[in-house]
């Protein structure tokens, strides 16, 4: 036997020796012989290199079976006879007091359901950003860098050069862009979203076809040579009814016939994180489906790049290696690539991904649901403690007639496990529903946002783990406490020395719950204020009643001249509709969620660049009436007119931030900037928030659309009344001009703005919801505690009343105790909030994390709730009949 084999065998035998004590004594020797013999047999083959012989690693891995085997034997031997008896007994006890069981199960379900739901979101956006990928941990996002940015897109020539010169640390490089497509099947055209992707995308991501084939290197041989498309499983079911004969069928995509060659497996939904895409078309088909001629343009960065790293290589190493290639490219193309490099990010850190948008919110929500779970556990523990007090007599009797302590503890743990399992099952159901319900919070959006459907194994396991952990937390403590009563006094009068301890424990549990609820409510209050402010903050335009709709002229085959004429006609027609005040086309829309929009590098006349500075400015292409439609005030000069079109003097409008940045204290009108040729600034308009309200105003420019054309545009309509009222008129106006132009993503301005505040809305709703639940739970906890306390003190209260105490004094006594507890908890909670919440201040808008008003309101609400929760038991105490109370025992 070789040394490796010997060592592996010794290790495996060590595992057996370790596991042996777990095996019931009666079977231990035989079990040990069996495993020793089998391991010897297997080890003998390690050296032989026979086909099928295990490697030493497989061998060691197999040895873990001894442990599993031992555990199985142990569980079956010791549990079987008593286990079922415990379950039967526990179930009988629980059904005898169904109120207690139902409350406990619902509480646990609530905690687990909330956690499961949030966790499935976390999994969707952060942990499995590209579901269906093989070894997703080795995938990384590659972004372009300039001197000032690290999150840029990549041009096709730069991507292709890098792909052909990969360093050994990167095994594959692919590129993609999510684009809207018009798909015609038979006579029916429909909007879909797809990825224009380098043909190696499925190899790099590691996806195998469900039917047919996926894209393959041949599809990227030459421009327009391979009109093939791959469809997603979901799209295949939705659009083609799951018919396998669809492979080989021809469909029209943006007016060009494409052959469907394959279907992706159900899990895969594209490389763009957070989106669920329908189709994939090879990069070489770009001009057929996406505007511009981009494959040869090194200066036109529009692609996202995805890399598969070699085993053991991290993002930093890949970034170093790829930057060597990027530096070569920069030297070869000095004009366009100077100072350009790449940044490599793990998928969940990618600054342009869904994770970047959702990450902070989800992190917050995870903390929140974790807190809710803690409160739930505390409440259930409190319930079980109260119940333990009631059962002390029963347990004392069982101990007295000879039950062992372990037996009693096991019995109590079984009961808790029953509760936890039932709660976990209900919670799992609830989490599925809740997770789906959360999507209702996402307003209509043009993007195909991926929704989490069903349970993933991870969510199931996490929920189960939570249920089990909860069991141990709230099952063990009361179980140990209860099974240790001083027998004699308990049998005598039902009280006991540990009563004071238990009371202190329950009081601190309740105070802790109050503290956590205060923390949640304060956070909720801050986000509600943020949402209010989102409505108040001036976004730089006053359009509130308006309609947005997207159109795409590309599939209908418009060139610049015909396209501009078409857009002009449509605008004119729409402005004549009743109820329409103004209308315009624009490429970029204010208050868009995420990082859409385009930047371009410009040269500013008369502005001296400081060392290493470069100017990259966001821009929009607009028809003249945009400013009137949006209601953007003009600061200086003039707005655009119909005369600003190709052939006339090239002009541009800039925003106030740009004027103040580059020509401070001087008039900007009349100055020139260079973007592919010089343009004269003819007007300055007020700053408009394009990327969210919280961001400080950035320089921005408006090109006249009649000069610089794009076929995919968004129509903005300012209406006098309800915007939905003009939808039909707008559709008719476009269809009467050309029925082949698709109109899609019709939404009101209100819906559009709601999407922009989605993260704050999610936070406010979730925090508010959970905060309220937490408040209710604390109220119930407080109520339970005081009710129990009153019950315990009934004789004392009776004596007080008999001696002439006023009932109102008794009420004050009980309510006072409740309020003292609540106030102590609230103080801790407020201090905690002031300490913790500033961490979330980047997500707050127009309100400080230590906003005094919010803190005051929450404290008031909480104390009012506490007063109510204490008043009910207080009233019962005051109504005690002295005579009966004194006879209590």
């Amino acid at each position, binding site marked *: 036997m070789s040394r490796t084999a010997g060592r592996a065998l010794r290790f495996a035998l060590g595992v057996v020796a370790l596991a042996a004590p777990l095996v019931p004594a009666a079977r231990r020797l*035989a079990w040990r*012989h*069996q495993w*020793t*013999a*089998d*391991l*010897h*047999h*297997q080890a*003998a083959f390690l050296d032989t290199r026979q086909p*099928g012989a295990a490697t030493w690693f497989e061998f060691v891995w*197999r*040895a*873990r*079976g*001894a442990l*599993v*085997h031992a555990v*199985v*034997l142990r569980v079956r031997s010791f549990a079987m006879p008593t286990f079922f008896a415990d379950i039967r007994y526990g179930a009988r006890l629980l059904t005898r007091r169904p109120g207690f069981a139902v409350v406990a199960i619902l509480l646990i379900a609530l905690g687990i359901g909330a956690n499961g739901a949030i966790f499935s979101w976390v999994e969707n956006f952060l942990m499995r950003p590209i579901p269906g990928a093989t070894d997703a941990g080795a995938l990384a996002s590659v972004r372009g860098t300039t001197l000032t940015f690290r999150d840029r897109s990549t041009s096709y020539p730069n991507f292709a050069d890098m792909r052909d010169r990969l360093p050994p640390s990167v095994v594959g490089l692919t590129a993609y862009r999510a684009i809207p497509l018009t798909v015609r099947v038979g006579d029916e055209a429909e909007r879909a979203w797809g990825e224009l992707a380098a043909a190696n995308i499925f190899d790099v991501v590691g996806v195998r076809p469900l039917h047919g084939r996926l894209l393959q290197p041949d599809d990227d041989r030459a421009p327009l040579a391979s009109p093939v498309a791959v469809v997603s499983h979901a799209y295949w079911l939705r659009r083609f009814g799951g018919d396998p004969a669809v492979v080989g069928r021809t469909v029209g995509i943006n007016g060009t016939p494409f052959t469907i060659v394959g279907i992706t497996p159900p899990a895969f939904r594209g490389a763009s994180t957070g989106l669920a895409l329908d189709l994939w078309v090879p990069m070489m088909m770009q001009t057929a489906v996406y505007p511009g001629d981009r494959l040869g343009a090194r200066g036109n960065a529009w692609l996202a790049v995805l890399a598969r790293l070699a085993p053991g290589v991290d993002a930093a190493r890949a970034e170093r290696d790829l930057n060597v290639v990027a530096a070569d490219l920069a030297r070869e193309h000095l004009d366009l690539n100077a100072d350009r490099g790449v940044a490599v990010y793990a998928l969940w850190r990618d600054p342009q991904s869904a994770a970047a948008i959702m990450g902070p919110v989800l992190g917050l929500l995870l903390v929140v649901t974790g807190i809710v779970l803690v409160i739930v556990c505390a409440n259930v523990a409190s319930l079980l403690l109260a119940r333990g007090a009631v059962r002390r007599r029963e347990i004392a009797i069982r101990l007295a007639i000879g039950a062992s302590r372990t037996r009693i503890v096991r019995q109590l743990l079984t009961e808790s496990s029953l509760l936890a399992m039932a709660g976990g099952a209900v919670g799992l159901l609830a989490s599925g529903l809740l997770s789906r319900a959360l999507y209702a919070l996402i307003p209509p959006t043009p993007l195909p946002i991926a929704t989490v459907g069903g349970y993933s194994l991870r969510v199931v396991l996490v929920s189960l783990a939570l249920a089990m952990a909860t069991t141990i937390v709230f099952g063990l403590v009361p179980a140990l406490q209860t099974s240790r009563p001083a027998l004699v006094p308990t049998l005598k009068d039902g009280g006991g020395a540990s009563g004071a301890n238990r009371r202190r424990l329950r009081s601190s549990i309740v105070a802790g719950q109050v503290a956590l609820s205060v923390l949640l409510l304060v956070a909720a209050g801050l986000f509600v204020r943020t949402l209010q402010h989102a409505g108040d903050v001036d976004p730089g335009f006053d359009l509130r009643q308006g309609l947005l709709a997207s159109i795409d002229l590309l599939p209908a085959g418009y060139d610049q001249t015909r396209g501009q004429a078409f857009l002009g006609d449509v605008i004119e027609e729409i402005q004549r509709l009743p109820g329409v005040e103004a209308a315009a086309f624009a490429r970029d829309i204010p208050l868009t969620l995420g990082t859409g929009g385009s930047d371009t590098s410009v040269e500013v006349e008369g502005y001296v660049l400081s060392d290493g500075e470069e100017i990259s400015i966001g821009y929009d292409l607009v028809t003249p009436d945009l400013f009137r439609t949006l209601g953007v005030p003009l600061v200086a000069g003039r707005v655009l007119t119909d005369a600003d079109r190709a052939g006339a003097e090239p002009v541009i409008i800039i925003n106030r931030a740009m004027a103040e940045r580059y020509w401070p204290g001087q008039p900007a009108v009349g100055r020139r900037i260079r973007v592919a040729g010089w343009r004269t600034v003819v007007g300055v308009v007020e700053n408009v928030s394009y990327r969210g309200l919280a961001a400080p105003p950035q320089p921005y420019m408006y090109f006249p659309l009649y000069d610089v054309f794009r076929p995919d545009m968004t129509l903005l309509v300012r209406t006098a009344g309800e915007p939905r009222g003009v939808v039909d008129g707008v559709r008719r106006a476009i269809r009467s001009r050309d029925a082949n132009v698709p109109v899609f993503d019709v939404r009101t301005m209100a819906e559009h703005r709601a999407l922009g505040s989605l993260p704050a809305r999610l936070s406010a709703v979730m925090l508010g919801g959970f905060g309220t639940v937490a408040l209710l739970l604390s109220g119930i906890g407080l109520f339970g505690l005081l009710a129990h306390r009153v019950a315990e003190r009934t004789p004392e209260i009776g004596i007080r009343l008999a001696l002439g105490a006023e009932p109102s004094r008794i009420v004050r006594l009980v309510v006072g105790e409740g309020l003292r507890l609540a106030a102590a908890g609230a103080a801790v909670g407020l201090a905690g909030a002031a300490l913790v919440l500033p961490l979330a201040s980047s997500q707050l808008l127009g309100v400080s994390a230590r906003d005094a008003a919010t803190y005051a309101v929450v404290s008031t609400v909480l104390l009012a709730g506490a007063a109510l929760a204490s008043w009910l038991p207080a009233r019962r105490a005051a109504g005690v009949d002295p005579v009966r109370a004194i006879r209590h025992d």
Partner: protein
Amino acid sequence: MARTRGMSFGGVAILHALADGKRFGFEIMDATGLTSGTVYPTLDRFEEARLVRSQWEDARIAHREGRPPRRYFTLTPAGAEALSDGLRRFKTFRPVAVGDYGGKAGRR
């Protein structure tokens, strides 16, 4: 036998391996591709249900080969019946002689 009616694919695979002449844990794992954590507890369960029986290898043979004696499993008539039943349900198994497990069983 009622218990065999819902037998899993893995269970049938283990019985099939025994009928095919495999005699102990690791041989069965190699034949079925199941993990050790499945095979050993299942063999125990089958023995309790009297679908298989186990006996220790003759210690002299083991001693001659310089290793500890193995625990050999063989099909019982009930196990053979359960296997036939399972093979009818799962058609993917290689045919194997199931008929004559009167108790001597499994030695090739």
